[in-house]
Structures are given as C-alpha cells and as structure tokens.
C-alpha cells in the first residue's frame, strides 16, 4: 500500500530544500548577488512562516510512519522549536555573510546553496525519530559545512586561503571519524535490538542484556562531536579561526543546535532505559567541557578563537541539565532548550559585531577591539551587552535567566556537585568576557569611525532585540517550548 505522506509536516524541510535549488537556478539565470541574498532570506522566511503555522496549529503531526506505529518524521513542539531556531539563525547568518561575500568576492550562489542544504539537514534532524534519518540528516548538515569552511578568505592562496583549507580538512577528518564511530555504534545497537525506530529501540533495549551501554556510548560520539563536548572538541578552535567568520557563527549555533537536538533525541528517546548511565556520563562530560573550555579561553588572544572556546564552555552549560535527565527528564530537556535558544541569540549577536570588526582587522585579535567604544559606540554597546549576557550577569538578564534555568534544573535534579562546578565556571567565564568588554572602553589614538555594513547592522540589531526581549519578557520564547517531550511518537 502507498504510505500517505503528510506534506504539511514536512513543510519547513521542503521549503529549505526547494529554496536551495531555486538559488542554484536563479544563479544560472544570472541573478545578482543581492537577489541571491534576498532569495535565501525569503527561503528562511517561508520556512519560519511554516514553522509558526504548524506551531499555531498546536497538534503534533507525524509522517513516514511504519505500520507498527513508529513514525520517522514527527513535527511536534520540540521539533518546531529546533526548526524555528535553526531557520532564524540561518537567516541571521545569511545577513552576516553578505558583506563577507561581497568583500571577498566569494561565489554567492554556491555559498547560499550550501548554507540552505545544511539548514535542510538541520531542520530534518530536528524531526527525525529513527536512526537512519538521524544519521543521514547529521551528514546533510555536516558535509556542506566542510565546503563552506573551505571558502578562501580575503585573498585566494593568501594566508586566509591556506588556513581555510586546513580548517576544512580538520573539520572533515573529525566529522568523518566520529560519524564512522556513530555508525558502528548504531550497527551494534541494531544488532542487539533489531530496531531502528527510536521508541521501538527504547522498548527493545528495556529487555536487552549486557553490552548495550558500549554501543550507546559509541552512538553519541557523532553528536558529541557536533556539540564540541570534551574530548570531541579539539577541532572547534582551529576550524572557527580558519573558517570565514559567518561560517564560524553557523557552526557555533546552527550545527550545534542540530547536534544537541540529535543528542536529546538519541538519549532521551532512544536510550531511555540507560538513563542512569548516560546521565552520569553527561554530567562528567558537561563538567569537563565547561571547565576545559573556560580555562583555555582565559589565555586566548584571537577574537573568534576566544568565541570558539567560549562556545565549547557554553556547550558544557547546555549539557549540564542533561546530567539529571534520569530523575527529571522533561525539566532537563526544557532547561537545555531554554539555554540553547538564549545562547543562540547572544552568540549570533556577538558574532555579528566580530564580523564587522574583522572587516577592518583581518587578524581579528582582541587588541583590535580597543577603543571600539569610540569608533563604533553602538556596536561596542551591543558587543558589551552580548558578552555580559554570555557571562550571565545583569544587565544581561537573558543570560542570567538562562543561567538560573540551568542551575535550577541541576539543583532540583539533585546534582549539587555539578551546580558548584557551574558556579566556579561562571566566575572563570566572567573574567574573559569582562576583560574583552572593558578593552573596548580603552582609548586608542586616531581610530577612525568603523562603518558597520547595513546587513551586519540589521543582523546585530535583530539579535540584540531578541536578547533584550528575552531579558525583559522571556515568557514569549519560553512559551513556545511545550514542556512535554515527544516521548511517544
């Protein structure tokens, strides 16, 4: 019999995919750089519109279902939030990229095409409920980013060009190895249970014997890589520094969100019977990740590299609530998503300003931000606000609420030790965020006014408005997150 497909559920993914094709076709038809930007933004916009429509509908839709009831593609609250987050972030990344593309004369069409492909992968991954779709979506997100990372910087063959290649190679090698490990894990899981549907897998695992935890751990390798948790983080600093700044932004938000979505789906849905083991494991991973990330970030001098280590540390904070998923699964996931959303807004804002400054200073050292308060007051104020948000201190209320949400989940879940480590890490984190913010207030003789290109201004402004909105009335965003996790498809 023909399997009925609920296209409405697929709408966001379809929008992104079709958008990608249209970009290529438009390029063939000789569309200008600005038109291509517009088209990509339009795609992201339509995707977002469909997400809001589905969200407005309230009911969760599912399609590609097996006769036995397990469905591969489910568009429920969790998925819609991830898809909304990814599409919004992609729109901002596009805005960030347009001045870089025009400035460095990069092939816009190919750039946007790859970007939209990656977005399609991320959107699908959010909705995937079986291992095959998960792996394929993971790959669809990763592969285009290798190519994006390889886009040469200012002068092809020049310093930036060499570095981009090296970054791409590292990203490629890391991704492929961890994907192989994940696949091997999935193979073992499949061997033990014979199931690929996540919920069916969970049911089967409940009956299975020993040996499964090893397979489970291998499976999460791929997602741990994407999220850049220790020890899968080595790639992050080098790739962020080597890649063009918008791509680094994309890596730090979109691919990280996709990674977290995959991790939550695999763990909270697929491997629920082993909750005790992987919770403790994630707790330890979270603690090491945040501490390692913060400590090394103390010594960084390069702006993007600092943001890379900061995003590694932030991954630690986002992972922390999952450490208590065995006792309070819905509270853990909700806290993780809350932090993820706020982190995305803050981080994109910070990357916006970093991109603007990198237009003037290619080496993008922290030193170059001295005196920014005079050369670009609004940009400096924005970056200062985002950095203090990342540190989790008022006046950056959004960051503070995110911090409180994580602390609340960890303490209510009973992991007191992790809460103490979190407290210590927020202190270490504050030092380098504040050091950077204070540096902008420094005096620098003869610093001409920094002209912030319009799309960059818009991107930073949107991020700022969202962050301030989150600070003042976070209910708006948190309301979106239906507390119930899609435990049963």
């Amino acid at each position: 019999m023909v399997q009925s497909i609920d296209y409405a559920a697929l709408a966001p993914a379809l929008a992104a995919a079709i958008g990608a094709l249209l970009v290529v076709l438009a390029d063939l038809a000789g569309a200008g750089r600005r038109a291509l930007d517009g088209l990509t933004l339009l795609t992201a916009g339509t995707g977002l519109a469909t997400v809001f429509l589905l969200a407005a509908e309230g009911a969760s839709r599912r399609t590609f279902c097996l006769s036995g009831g397990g469905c591969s593609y489910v568009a429920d609250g969790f998925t819609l939030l991830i898809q909304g987050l990814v599409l919004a972030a992609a729109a901002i990344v596009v805005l960030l990229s347009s001045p870089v593309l025009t400035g460095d004369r990069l092939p816009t069409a190919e750039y946007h095409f790859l970007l939209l492909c990656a977005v399609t992968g991320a959107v699908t991954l959010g909705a995937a409920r079986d291992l095959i779709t998960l792996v394929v979506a993971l790959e669809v997100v990763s592969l285009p980013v290798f190519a994006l990372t390889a886009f040469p910087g200012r002068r092809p063959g020049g310093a930036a060009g060499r570095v981009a290649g090296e970054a791409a190679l590292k990203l490629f090698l890391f991704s492929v190895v961890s994907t192989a490990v994940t696949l091997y894990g999935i193979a073992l899981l499949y061997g033990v249970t014979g199931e690929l549907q996540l919920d069916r897998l969970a049911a089967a695992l409940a009956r299975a014997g020993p040996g499964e935890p090893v397979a489970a751990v291998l499976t999460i390798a791929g997602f741990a890589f994407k999220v850049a948790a220790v020890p899968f983080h080595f790639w992050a600093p080098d790739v962020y520094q080597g890649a063009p700044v918008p791509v680094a932004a994309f890596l730090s938000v979109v691919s990280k969100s996709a990674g977290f979505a995959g991790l939550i789906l695999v763990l909270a849905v697929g491997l629920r019977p082993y909750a005790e083991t992987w919770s403790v494991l994630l707790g330890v991973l979270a603690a090491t990740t945040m501490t390692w990330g913060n400590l090394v970030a103390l010594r960084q001098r390069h702006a993007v590299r600092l943001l890379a280590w900061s995003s590694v540390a932030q991954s630690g904070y986002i992972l922390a609530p999952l450490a208590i998923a065995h006792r309070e699964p819905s509270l853990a996931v909700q806290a993780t998503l809350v932090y993820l959303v706020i982190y995305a807004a803050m981080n994109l804002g910070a990357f916006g300003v970093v991109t603007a400054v990198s237009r003037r200073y290619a080496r993008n050292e922290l030193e170059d931000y001295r005196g920014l308060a005079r050369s670009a007051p609004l940009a400096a104020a924005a970056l200062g606000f985002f950095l203090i948000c990342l540190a989790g201190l008022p006046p950056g209320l959004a960051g503070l609420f995110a911090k409180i949400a994580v602390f609340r989940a960890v303490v209510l879940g009973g992991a007191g030790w992790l809460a103490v480590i979190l407290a210590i890490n927020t202190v270490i984190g504050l030092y380098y965020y504040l050091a950077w913010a204070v540096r902008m207030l420094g005096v620098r003789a003869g610093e001409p006014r920094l002209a912030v290109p319009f799309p960059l201004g818009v991107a930073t402004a949107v991020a700022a408005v969202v962050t301030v909105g989150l600070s003042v009335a976070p209910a708006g965003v948190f309301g979106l997150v239906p507390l119930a996790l899609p435990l049963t498809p």
Partner: protein
Amino acid sequence: MSALVPILLAAPLAGLVAVLAAPARAAVRLGLATTLATLAAAVAIAAAFDYGRAGAVQLEVDALWVATIGLSLHLGVDGVSLPLVLLTALLSVLCLVALQQRLPAPGRPKALVALLLALVLGMLGTFVALDLLLFFVFFEVVLIPMYFVIAVWGGDGRRAAAYKFILYTLLGSGLLLVGLLMIYAGGGTLDMVQLARGHGAGMSRGFQIAAFLAVGIGLAVKAPMWPLHTWLPDAHTEAPTVGSVLLAGVLLKMGTYGFVRIALPMLPDGAVAVAPYLGALAVVGILYGALACLGQTDLKRLIAYSSVGHMGFVLLGIATLTPVGVNAALFGNIAHGLITGLLFFLAGAVKDRYGTADIPRLGGGMLAKAPQLGGLLVFAAVASMGLPGLAGFWGEMLALLGAFRPDPSLARTPFLIFMALGGIGTLLTAAYFLTLLRQVAQGAVAQEWRNVRIPALTLSEVAAWTPLVTATVAVGLWPRTLLAITDPAVRALLGGG
C-alpha cells in the same frame, strides 16, 4: 497604596534611562532629582507602614515575571527591610549631593550617574524582594555597575581591585544561587514569606545544613566574613569616595540582610548546626579586623578593615540566633552604614585636600590645620568606636548581650568565649581608632602641610554629611526608634524567638 514599592524601584530605573538619554551636563542634577524622588518614595513607604504590625510584610505586590523558572515580581516591606531601604535611599541622595561638588578622576558624569542609579536599583531591589530568585537577580544587579565604578573612577590599583571584587562576589553569588535553589527544592516554593513561616518544614537536617552552608558562604563573601574578606580592603581603597560609601554603607548589608531574611528563618536546623562556626569566624573577623587596622598606614584601607571588624559584630549577633542578637545585627547594620559612610566621605575629603590618604604623610595636627574636618573625623572615629549615646554602641553591646545568652539549642560555653573575645575586640577597636586620631587629628602639624592652605568644607560637603551626623546622634540617643521597628519583625522571622 500598595503600588509604593514598585514606584520605589521604578524611580531609579526611570532616572537611569533619563540620564542615559540626557546630555552629559544635566546628568548629575538629573541623578540627584532621581535619588530625591527615590528617597521621597522611601519616606512615603515609611509613612504608609503600619508600625503596629511591624512584624508582618506590608505593601505587598506579586506578579509573575518568568514563568519557566517560577520567578515572580514579589515585593514587600517589613520591619527588617524598612530601615535598610531608608538607609539606602538616604546614602544614595548624599552620594549624589557629594557628586554635585566634584566628579572623581576621568569625570564622565553621564556614565557614573547611570551606574550609581543602577546600583541603587539593585540595592533597593534586594531589600524589597520577597521571591528567592528575584532576591538573587537584584543581588547580582549590583555587580557590574560596582565593577565599572571601581575600574573606571578608582585609584591607581583599581583594575585588579575591581576584578577581585567582581570575581570573588560572583563566586559567592553562584553558591548563593545553589543554596536558594536547594531551599526552593526542599520548601517547594520561591515565596520567602511562606518559606519563612514554614521554618524549614519538609527539609531534613542534613539538607538544611548543606543549603545553609551554600547560602551562608554566598552571603558571607558579601558580609564579609573573615576568611572571605580579602576583596574588601582592595575594593574600598581603590573605589572613588561615592563608590566606597555605597559599597560600605549598603552592599555589605545585603549579605547580613540575606542571613536574617533567608538563612535563619528558612533553615533553622541548618542554622543551629552552623551557628557556632559562624560565631567563631565572626569573632576572628572582629579581632583580625581590629589588629589589621592597628597595622595599617592607609586611611581608607584602615576604614575598610574596620568594616570587617564591625561586620564581625553583626555576624556574631546573627550567630546567636536569638531576637536580641538579630536585633543587634540589624541595628549594627544601620549604625555601620551611617558611621562608615561618614568615615569614607571624610577619607575622600582628606584625600582631595591633602592629595594623600597615607597616615604617616598626613602627619597629624588636622584639628589645628582643618578644624572642621578634624572635628568630624574625631566624631566619626568615636562613633565607630562604640561610644554610648552614638549609634555604634547599641549594635555592639546588644551583640555581646546576645552572645551572653544564645539560643537554648546552642552550646553556651563557646558563645561565652565569643562574648569575651568580642569584648577584647571593642577594646582593640578603641585602641586603633584612638591611635588613628593621635596620628592624624592630634599632634603638631607636619612640616609638609605647615604653610599649605587646606580649604574649608564646601556647602555640598556639609549638606552631604550633616544628615549622617544627626542620624548617628539621634539613633544613638534614642535606639528605640530602630529597635521598636525591627524587634517584632525579628520575632516573627525567628518564630516567636
């Protein structure tokens, strides 16, 4: 009528926005207007406050703000927080008055006034917050503004001091958040009034001890309690006068207020278990602070260490877990706020006039060279030393009385030892203040200043300091004004005492 408390908080916020929008010239005047409005609101609250039921929380406002983490804008005032609100409003007005006359180093009035108003908002918010997380949010609102006040307008070692201040306090507030959330997990609600009434119901003794330790360390860093105090001397010495006054006058009280409002009523078993250690550290703080003062050569640093000593008495009062002790702590808070605020104003004035706060270089003879300044310095030192008839005496004496008869559930002998050591502490306090007066106020005028004209006190200085002097004398001569307000509230919080 119950909208007074939100108005109290809205005033500095509105002022903050107005100052940022207004031109730099008008900043200081606008700031003064805002603080005066805040003081008016505080006085209105004091007027509307029903002193008959000083124990009950009044003028309550409760509105949900962040649903997911359960944070609600729950504000209210009671006998414990009313005096602190008035003290904060008064000190902020005096700071702005002091700013009228001269701005510290790099000027930039707009930014300084905006930061001060943010500080005022944070401080007032902490005292009127009745929701655990709201208390935490306001507790952290003061960090960034105070950091910038020290880092930008401070003395020469300001950046290291500012970093140490904010990183140390942030670690403390991180632990505080863990403690608050443990209370929330155990007590089931974030509403401080309900939790206080519940007296740690539903929380095992071990849980209460852990929660008390977390909350206690967080608050002790702010108090500051002895081993966690090292940020205080640097922060106070490097902060500009206005910063030091607010830092010493109010920020230190947020820590001890937290103990009285949160730690003691909500975690009684935890309090009983930890109280002797808290008392011991408090007494060490008293003796340590006094001895450190004897060995100091910088005036502002000496006053900072004296704060460690005085807050030692406040913490000793809290450690006794009796209404007498807690009343002593609250009285000590207000008295220390007034007196040390005045001392820092004076230290600032001395530094402006003499160009240095180094005691050997000041050389003495200030009573001859600058009689008004010298006289006020003598007054403030004597008040801080605990001369009866001035505010400093009642806080310390009642703390010793509290230590003499601690809560029945506490072992008595350690507290008798603490009382004795506290007595020796008062002796040492008298010693270092009199040595200070002997080296600075009395004696012959040093050669360096013999033919230098030291300007007399300006109008704005006098205007800024007279309220502090009159308040110190009034509260000292008539302690009933404060004790009648705090006693019923303390009895309510400690569950009938």
